C-alpha cells in the first residue's frame, strides 16, 4: 500500500517534469477547440514537389542509394493529418519503407475551408488523377504502387477501379470500403435512419475537425473521455510512455476540416449504401467497378480496430478482380497499426510482399 503511494508520487512527478520540459501548446481555434501539447512529429525529411488548391504532393528523401523502380504513393485520409505514419523516428512506417529502398511519396489533402466545396469527383478525378500523372512523369514510370490509409484507402480503391492501368500494386490499410451492418462501429453510428451528413455540411459549409474527432471518440466513450487519462497516469513512470501519449493526443485533436460534398457523398454512398462494393458508385458519370482492380492487392488490418474494423477492409477483397490478394493482420487498433511495436513487425512482412512486386532497384535522382 505504502509502496503504491510512493509510486503514485513518482508518476505525478514524471508528468509534472514532462510538462516542464514541453511547455508549448497549440492554441485552440474554432475548428480544434483543444489545448494540445506542441510535441515534435513527422520528422522524416521530405520536399514538396507539386500542389494544387492546398493539396500537396511530397517526396520523402531517399534513405538508400538505389530504390525499387515502382514508387510508392501514400494516399492519406481526408480526415486528420498524415504525420501519424511518421509519428517519431523509431515508430515510422514511412522510414521503414525508405530504409527498405522504396521511393516514397505522400498526398496531403489539406484543411478545407468554406471555399473548398469539393466532392468525391473532384478529389478522385482532379486531384488524385493529376497527382498520379505528375508523379508518373516525375519518376519516369508508367505505374505506381498506392498505399491508402483509412478513408484514403477508399479514395485509392475508387481511383484504382477507374484507372487500373496506372496502378501496379494496391495496399489498403485499415480502409473503409465494405459497409455491411455487421461491421458495426462507425457504420452503425452513420446509420441512414439517424444520421444525415448534409445537416452538418449545411450548418458549417465544411465538416469541422472537432465534429469528426468527437464522433470517433463516441465509439469508445469510456476510454476516449476518461480511462486513457487514467492509463496515462498509471504508466507515467514508464520510459517514453508520456511522449508517445501526447504525440497521439496531438494527432487525435489536431485534425483537419473536410470538404462538405466529399464527406456527404462518402457517408451517403459508401457508409449508408455500400455503393463501392455493389458497383453503384459513379464518379463524373463513370461507374466505379471494383472488378477492374486486377493488380496485386494487400489488405492491412488491425484486429482491435474499432474505427475501421477488419471486416470493413477484408469484405472488399471479395469484390475485387485480383487473383493476387494478401492479408496482413496485427494485434492493434486503428492507430496502433502504424505506431505499435507489434505492428512494426508486421510491416516487415508487408515490405517483403511489396518488394517482390516493385521491380528491380534503380538509381534515382
Amino acid at each position, binding site marked *: 500500500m505504502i509502496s*503504491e503511494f510512493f509510486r503514485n508520487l513518482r508518476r505525478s512527478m514524471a508528468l509534472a517534469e514532462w510538462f516542464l520540459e514541453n511547455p508549448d501548446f497549440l492554441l485552440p481555434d474554432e475548428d480544434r477547440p483543444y489545448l494540445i501539447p506542441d510535441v515534435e512529429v513527422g520528422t522524416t525529411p521530405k520536399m514538396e514537389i507539386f500542389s494544387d488548391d492546398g493539396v500537396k504532393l511530397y517526396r520523402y528523401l531517399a534513405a538508400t542509394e538505389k530504390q525499387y523502380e515502382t514508387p510508392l504513393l501514400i494516399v492519406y485520409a481526408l480526415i486528420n493529418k498524415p504525420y501519424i505514419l511518421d509519428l517519431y523516428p523509431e515508430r515510422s512506417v514511412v522510414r521503414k519503407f525508405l530504409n527498405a529502398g522504396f521511393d516514397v511519396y505522400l498526398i496531403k489533402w489539406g484543411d478545407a475551408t468554406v471555399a473548398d466545396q469539393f466532392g468525391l469527383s473532384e478529389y478522385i*478525378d482532379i486531384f488524385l488523377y493529376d497527382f498520379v500523372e505528375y508523379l508518373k512523369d516525375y519518376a519516369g514510370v508508367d505505374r505506381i504502387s498506392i498505399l491508402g490509409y483509412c478513408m484514403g484507402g477508399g479514395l485509392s480503391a475508387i481511383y484504382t477501379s477507374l484507372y487500373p492501368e496506372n496502378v501496379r500494386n494496391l495496399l489498403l490499410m485499415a480502409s473503409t470500403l465494405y459497409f455491411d451492418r455487421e461491421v458495426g462501429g462507425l457504420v452503425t453510428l452513420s*446509420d441512414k435512419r439517424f444520421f444525415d451528413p448534409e445537416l452538418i455540411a449545411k450548418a458549417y459549409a465544411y465538416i469541422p475537425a472537432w465534429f469528426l474527432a468527437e464522433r470517433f471518440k463516441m465509439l469508445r466513450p469510456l476510454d476516449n473521455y476518461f*480511462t486513457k487519462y487514467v492509463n496515462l497516469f498509471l504508466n507515467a513512470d514508464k520510459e517514453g510512455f508520456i511522449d508517445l501519449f501526447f504525440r497521439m493526443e496531438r494527432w487525435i485533436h489536431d485534425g483537419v476540416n473536410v470538404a462538405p460534398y466529399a464527406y456527404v457523398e462518402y457517408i451517403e454512398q459508401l457508409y449508408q449504401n455500400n455503393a463501392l462494393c455493389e458497383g453503384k458508385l459513379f464518379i463524373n458519370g463513370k461507374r466505379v467497378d471494383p472488378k477492374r482492380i486486377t493488380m496485386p492487392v494487400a489488405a492491412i488490418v488491425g484486429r482491435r480496430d474499432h474505427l475501421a474494423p477488419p471486416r470493413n477492409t477484408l469484405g472488399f477483397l471479395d469484390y475485387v478482380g485480383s487473383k493476387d490478394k494478401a492479408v496482413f493482420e496485427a494485434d492493434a487498433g486503428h492507430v496502433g497499426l502504424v505506431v505499435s511495436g507489434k505492428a512494426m513487425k508486421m510491416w516487415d512482412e508487408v515490405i517483403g510482399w511489396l518488394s517482390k512486386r516493385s521491380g528491380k532497384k534503380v538509381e534515382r535522382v
Partner: protein
Amino acid sequence: MVNEFLETYKRILEFWIKLSNPRTYLQNITHEELLDFTFKLTSGVFKIWQINAEYLAKIYQKMMEGDPEEILKTQLDYISKLEDVVAETADSPVYSAYVNALNRAYINQLLLLQEFSNALFHSVGLPTRKDIVALSEAYVDLKGDIKREVREIKKELREVKRVLEGGK
C-alpha cells in the same frame, strides 16, 4: 364528472406512455433493436459488477504480494475490460439514434440561428457565408471544366506529336 375524470386519466396515461417510450424520440428504431439494446445494457451492468468483484479480489491479493508490476498489470487489465464492455454496449443502433438525435437537435438550433442572421445581413445588403459557398461551388465547377479542357488539349497535342513523329 366521473366520466370526465376517467377520460382525463386515460389521456394522461397515453401521454405518459408516449413520453416514456424511446421510440418517440428515436426515429425508425425497431422493437427488436430496442430489445437487443436493453439486453446488452442489462448484461453490460452484470458484466461490470462481475469485473469489479474480480478486480477487488485480485488487486487486494496483488497488494498483499507487493509486486508493483503485477499491481499495475491488474489495474490496466481492469480498465481494458471495462472499456470493452462499454464499447460493446455502445455499438448499437439505439446508442447511434441517441447520439444522432442530440446532434440533430444542436444542428437544427444552429441552422435556425444562421437563417435568422443571414436574413438580417441580406436585408441590409451584406453578403453571408451562403454567398461565399455559392461562389465556391461556381469555382469548383469552373476548375472541373478547365481540367477537362486541358486534358483534351493535351490529348490532341500528343496525337499531333505522334502523327508528326510518324511522318518523319
